[in-house]
């Protein structure tokens, strides 16, 4: 079922205008120099000339702060409903972020547990990914089994081939949407070849790599290693790397209540915060930076691997780009791979 379509770049705004009429359209918008996926009413405000959005997509399905239910003495419990039930289109998502959504499905749409809040938002979303012709210097996706042309997680895959976009339906859902799109026409062989060449060129531009072949096993041996002291020393314990990570998904549930009413809210949490896993007794099993740094790396490259047979990292490079002390995950992994294993106690 491989179906391809083309659209001239000059017609893309019109196409997006139409999509915005029938769907909730989320696309990259630049505001104060920062690009983020934002709901738009038309195609005009959209920028498709960008590296990647500052924030990943995850908050679309897993908001930073989400009311699970509210309660009051008079009314008992009320569950808020999704306000806008129209189907959503995410247009121009980068392949790494589309893949990240697939990884998060393991957690929120897993065999053991299905999260209704997440699924409601996830299920009626169509993802149109845009291949990266120009990866960032901090990208390292190719070492994690994906790349600028990776289609996992996309319903439609788009390649910018100069004055035209090439659309490929990846799923049935994507095929249906592609059939609805106006202004498109059949591509020629040379267009398809050009798209392939551009993707290969882009892959070759990605120079940074991490080695994950034996990483999970290695981490098993390093639980008590002094390496964590070294890795955590400069970290200031903010939430940037985890909040801007497309796969980090820890949350804390709190009650925001006063008098006889309140709401139970699920907020993002970060393993880098001092109060992460702080217990009611005041005891914290992860009392210092080193335990927290270990948790972050272990969760991504060991626990997640054991649970879901995948690394919880897509190589987008956001953690490094945004870290106030420039903690580089690539160098962290390198140090771990080279560390001397500790004998098990």
């Amino acid at each position, binding site marked *: 079922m491989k179906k391809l379509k083309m659209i001239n770049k000059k017609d893309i705004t019109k196409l997006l205008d139409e999509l915005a009429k029938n769907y909730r359209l989320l696309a990259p918008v630049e505001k104060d120099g*920062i690009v983020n996926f934002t709901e738009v009413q038309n195609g005009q405000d959209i920028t498709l000339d960008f*590296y990647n959005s500052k924030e990943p997509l995850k908050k679309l399905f897993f908001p930073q702060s989400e009311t699970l239910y509210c309660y009051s003495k008079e009314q008992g419990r009320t569950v808020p409903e999704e306000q806008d039930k129209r189907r959503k289109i995410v247009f121009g998502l980068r392949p790494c972020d589309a893949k990240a959504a697939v990884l998060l499905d393991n957690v929120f749409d897993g065999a053991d547990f299905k999260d209704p809040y997440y699924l409601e938002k996830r299920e009626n979303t169509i993802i149109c990914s845009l291949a990266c012709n120009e990866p960032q210097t*901090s990208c390292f996706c190719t070492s994690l089994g994906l790349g600028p042309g990776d289609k996992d997680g996309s319903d439609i895959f788009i390649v910018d081939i100069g004055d035209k976009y090439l659309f490929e339906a990846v799923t049935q859902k994507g095929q249906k949407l592609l059939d609805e799109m106006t202004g498109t026409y059949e591509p020629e062989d040379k267009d398809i070849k050009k798209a392939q060449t551009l993707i290969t060129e882009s892959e070759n531009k990605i120079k940074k790599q991490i080695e994950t072949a034996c990483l999970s096993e290695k981490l098993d041996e390093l639980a008590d290693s002094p390496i964590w002291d070294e890795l955590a020393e400069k970290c200031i314990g903010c939430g940037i790397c985890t909040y801007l990570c497309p796969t980090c998904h820890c949350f804390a549930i709190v009650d*925001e209540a006063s008098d006889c009413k309140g709401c139970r809210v699920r907020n993002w949490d970060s393993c880098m915060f001092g109060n992460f896993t702080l217990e009611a007794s005041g005891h914290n099993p992860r009392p210092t930076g080193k335990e927290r740094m270990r948790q972050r790396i272990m969760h991504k490259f060991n626990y997640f691997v054991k649970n879901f047979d995948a690394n919880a990292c897509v190589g987008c490079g956001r953690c490094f780009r945004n870290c106030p002390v*420039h903690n580089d995950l690539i*160098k962290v992994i390198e140090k771990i791979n080279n560390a001397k294993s500790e004998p098990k106690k």
Partner: protein
Amino acid sequence: MSDIQQQIQEHAKKLLSDKTVDLFIGYKDINEPMLTEPAFIRDAKDADQLIWNPFCEHNLAKYLVGRNEKIAIVAKTNDVRSIVVLINEQQVIRENLTIIGVNCDDVIDRKKVEAEMDGKDITSAQIKDDKLIVKAEKISKTLKIKNYLHDSCLDNKRDMSEICDIIIGEKSSCKTEEDKYAKIRELEQKTPEERWEYFKKELSKCIRCYACRNACPLCYCKSCFVDQKFPNWVGQTTDLSDTMCFHIMRALHTAGRCVDCGACVRACPNGIDLRMLTGKIEKDVKELFGAEAGLNPETDNPMTSYKEDDPEDFIK
């Protein structure tokens, strides 16, 4: 290698090998354009990793609180002032500390440089005298460093040499005439409604990552009010009122203590100019109480002390 860098390395070697200190905190290179990272050196033979350049942006005073070791620290003028506040507040034991003050310590604002590069990733950045040669794919620009400094560096800096144990470098040669409070003064002229709108717009960019708080050398509370659940001083949600409450309360906690080092601004992933809050308070304290934080380890914080000529206009 710059003279300053060489001197830092020599001091580190000496201080570590004669066991004057256990730990030397400075900066090291990470082989990425315009970036350096905090370095923690414990062995004299690693001292040659230490570097000095206008990208040494971090305020390393952040790393002093809660350590029992004898430490030597490389500090820019404003960082020395942060250390003085920490000494003042008894968070750091002066005797355990060797302060290496570096003059000519202006820091390049990477965001200002990036703005010149059409949003492209910078692939190389080299310093040549008072200029920065910066390259991205298909772009190369030569920029005058003094036009790309952090706003917090636009100041005739205080002479902190009396506080420092070791001074490196000539008194700054790269001073600018610009007013570091220019943006704040502009905002002061606006109506309360306009100012409120400004802060609402700026702080709506906040993602509550707390990088500003965690980068601040003075935010050393063991349990920050924003992390406390009983009582729940501030809501944990992303509601703008919760976010603003966090920023306003944090800024007020720094009143009379903030030295305007700009660490909070540099840490923010979304480029929120938090100096508009903290810098305004710092300026007010200076104007109202004639006090500037971190100049003298013996002086009390104006917020916790009383002078007969303190302003009392608010008593009607």
